[in-house]
């Protein structure tokens, strides 16, 4: 009797509890395993450990230290360099993207796209060399400007200062802006310009009521991404500064390598967690805006 009941119950149970999840989740397993193990697990553990004291008890002490000097200055500098480099690169980059996408030939656009792809990823020592060669103490531009009567090294300037770093960051921020803002320009349809002109608008009216309102969200989104890129850049800052400019990524690197000793073992993790939070505050709105504007950008 019991035997019979079990035999009858088996298929239903199998379908509801076993077959269904397997069939609908199994093909995603390799991706989920790799991303889970090499990405989600480390990040989760990082955030968890940032709340641990040296004795492995839960504490907020690491964060208290993270918001005191010199780490406070590090955050302020990093946020400042992210904001400034994004603010300086955003408008020129947007205009460059507009002129290249609307006036350039297909060949030119593709060449520039490739070039920007490479430029947006330059950083570290190679980028530092380029700027040492151009506006370093013995740089070509420095010499030319000196002949013209402007010694850029007369004051406080050096490439390892905030201003120096800002100029160097523009080298990858500007191409990055062109890359991420171009799709919005491409999606502006000719018909809209024509429709506006047919309704009696002039160029100014078109931009005020159609062009700018359409592009503005993408512009803000691009600005946010640029901020995150400048805020978290490590390689270039590491190559240019010699510990004279406190920046959070460098401080984390120093703590990780043990170059800098801190009484709190998990301070570096707390700094990293705060970085993730700040970066998320910029990137998540960026992703949301991108997704929304993708709707009208589709043809």
């Amino acid at each position, binding site marked *: 009797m019991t035997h019979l009941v079990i035999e009858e119950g088996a298929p239903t149970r199998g379908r509801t509890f076993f077959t269904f999840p397997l069939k609908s989740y199994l093909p995603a397993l390799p991706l989920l395993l*790799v991303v889970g193990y*090499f990405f989600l697990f480390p990040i989760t553990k990082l955030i968890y450990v940032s709340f641990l004291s040296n004795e492995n008890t839960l504490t907020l002490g690491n964060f208290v230290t993270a918001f005191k000097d010199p780490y406070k200055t590090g955050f302020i500098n990093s946020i400042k360099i992210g904001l400034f480099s994004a603010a300086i690169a955003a408008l020129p980059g947007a205009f460059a993207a507009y002129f290249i996408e609307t006036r350039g030939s297909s060949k030119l656009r593709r060449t520039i796209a490739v070039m920007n792809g490479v430029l947006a990823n330059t950083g570290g020592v*190679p980028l530092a060399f380029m700027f040492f060669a*151009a506006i370093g103490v013995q740089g070509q531009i420095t010499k030319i400007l000196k002949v013209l009567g402007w010694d850029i090294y007369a004051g406080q300037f050096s490439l390892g200062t905030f201003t120096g770093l800002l100029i160097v960051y523009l080298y990858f921020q500007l191409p990055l802006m062109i890359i991420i803002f171009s799709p919005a320009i491409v999606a502006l349809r000719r018909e809209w310009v024509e429709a506006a002109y047919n309704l009696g608008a002039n160029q100014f009216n078109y931009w005020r009521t159609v062009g700018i309102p359409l592009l503005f969200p993408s512009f803000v989104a691009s600005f946010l991404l640029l901020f995150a890129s400048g805020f978290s850049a490590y390689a270039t800052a590491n190559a240019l500064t010699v510990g004279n400019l406190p920046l959070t990524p460098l401080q984390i690197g120093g703590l990780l390598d043990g170059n800098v000793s801190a009484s709190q073992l998990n301070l570096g*993790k707390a700094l*990293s967690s705060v970085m993730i939070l700040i970066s998320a505050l910029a990137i998540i709105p960026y992703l949301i805006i991108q997704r929304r504007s993708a709707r009208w950008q589709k043809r």
Partner: protein
Amino acid sequence: MKFKRNLPLILTLTLFGFFVFVPMISAFEYSIRTPLEGGYGWKHYIWAVTQDDFVYYIMRSGWLAFLTVLITLLILVPTITWLHLSQSPLRVLIDAISLLPLVIPVVAFAVGAQISLPEFVQSTILELPFLYFVLCLPYAYRSLDIGLSAIPLKTLTEAARSSGANPIRTINSVIVPAIRGSVMATVAITFVLSLGEYTLTVLLHWDTFPTWVTFVAQENILGAIAISMMSLIIPFLILTGITLALPERSNQGRK
């Protein structure tokens, strides 16, 4: 008339070109200096490529990048194809996960990897392709996702299946050729990003081509500048080659 219309473009390109090429040319000028003899020559380039380490590190970075490309394609192509076909509830989740690496600064990711991955993973350089895979995921996923949205995937798969192809064969000989533009773009971005990755590599104490340049800079600065120039030109050539091999502005990515 034509000139007047093109004036803003010419102006843009001049300014942008000036900003991009002046530092590049300045560095190039340094790299061909021969201070001892005076004048110019290819001495430092020859010095660089004849270093044993040059070949060693370029091969090392090359095969790490190759492995990253392999992992990316092997994992992503079948998974995204399946997500498109099955209407699985997981798609929303995986879409979101694929963008997550953009949110995490690489420095923070490096710290996380260092404290959480076990000894046997961290003692082999083979951890790098998997970590690079994560860094490239947002770009690779997006590119393949757009490619797969642009083809009649269901029709193609059904046709292949009813002609007797198994899933692997369907992917290899039907789907991949249909989205070759996206696949090539994915290969390009993944390869170039992994080849030039510095932050994660150096913080996890591995030596690859980009970190080796830092080391060379301490003993032969002009040689290091020569290597840096090459490290800019090599990705440029790879990307240009792949872009030119693709059909011009194909209808991929647009329905």
